[in-house]
């Protein structure tokens, strides 16, 4: 099973293929390597957002303007963005792509965060948000192409798509 740093590297390889002009990011200890990479990336403007729903709005504006953009968030913040996501980009058929790090489960070190994180998939199902998953069951060599395919799928289907990525070892 691939180690956390290999998994982050695979996500970075997928982001490189997307070649985003803008990357929005929330703070996350599991996403440090990926955020550091996009911040240092030439021709990418990477910037922090203070709340997930604010990112939904900014990302939607960028998409409408034709900019290549994506957001990097952690799954415990999914609850913050659901109303914004469903009432704007989903209802208006605006593609968006979110790389979402998984918390809770194997490798977790926080005694509380699983309360929301273990239920993120049923929450997204209930809200009809399309997502794909990368974890230890997916060969690491398939990760970069899955990142780019998920991004393209958001464009093809004119809606937000999330890629849930377990970078902790589960």
């Amino acid at each position: 099973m691939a180690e956390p740093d290999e998994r982050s590297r695979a996500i970075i390889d997928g982001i490189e293929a997307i070649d985003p002009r803008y990357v929005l990011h929330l703070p996350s200890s599991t996403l440090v390597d990926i955020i550091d990479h996009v911040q240092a990336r030439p021709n990418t403007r990477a910037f922090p957002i203070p709340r997930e729903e604010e990112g939904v709005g900014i990302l939607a504006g960028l998409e409408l303007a034709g900019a290549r953009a994506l957001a990097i968030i952690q799954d415990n913040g999914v609850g913050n963005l659901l109303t914004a996501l469903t009432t704007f980009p989903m209802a208006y058929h605006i593609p968006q792509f979110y790389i979402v790090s998984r918390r809770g489960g194997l490798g977790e070190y926080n005694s509380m965060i699983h309360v929301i994180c273990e239920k993120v998939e049923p929450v997204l199902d209930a809200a009809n948000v399309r997502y794909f998953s990368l974890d230890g069951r997916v060969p690491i060599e398939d990760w970069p192409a899955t990142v780019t395919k998920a991004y393209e799928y958001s464009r093809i289907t004119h809606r937000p798509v999330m890629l849930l990525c377990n970078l902790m070892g589960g």
Partner: protein
Amino acid sequence: MDALRLVDAAFPDQPIVVNVGAAIREMVAAVGSKPNHLHILDSMGLPPAIGLGLSLGLAESRFEKVVAIEGDGGLLMGLSVLSTIGMLAPEKLVLIVLDNGTYGSTGGQPTASDSTDFAGVARACKMVANDVDSAEGLRGALNEARAIEEPVLIRVRIGPKTEKAPYFLEDPAVLADTFRRFLRDGPARA
């Protein structure tokens, strides 16, 4: 409705994000449903962020300005966006806060706007800000904003009364597509 007319007249061919509820109904009643207007039907608090994303994505475009209209209640739902705007400094963004001191679309419940200096907060976030309470003041602030190459916030104090206007029930996917086509092909000045 007068304030909305002035905003439309100042930016007749620039992208304008129109905020939820009564503002949309009044804007449509005043000037019609225009392709350069993106109507945000139910995402209260999101127009400033949408305007920010648009102004970043359109930074190199033919458009001179990107306008986002928000109410005082909507802005208070996500005041942090002013910090993000200040950090990113989009030169084309003009954020207009129509401040009637109430949540006008939901029955007029009070907001905290009386004790909030929106223009002061915006200035503290490194935006250019103006505070107006008349049609003449708004007209002047809009004209000034057109020449400023920094993000601008204009707080417009308006009365709590809203005009009776029919519900605006267009399909949101159609609204987005119309707006997207305007951005791609629209008649803005070169």
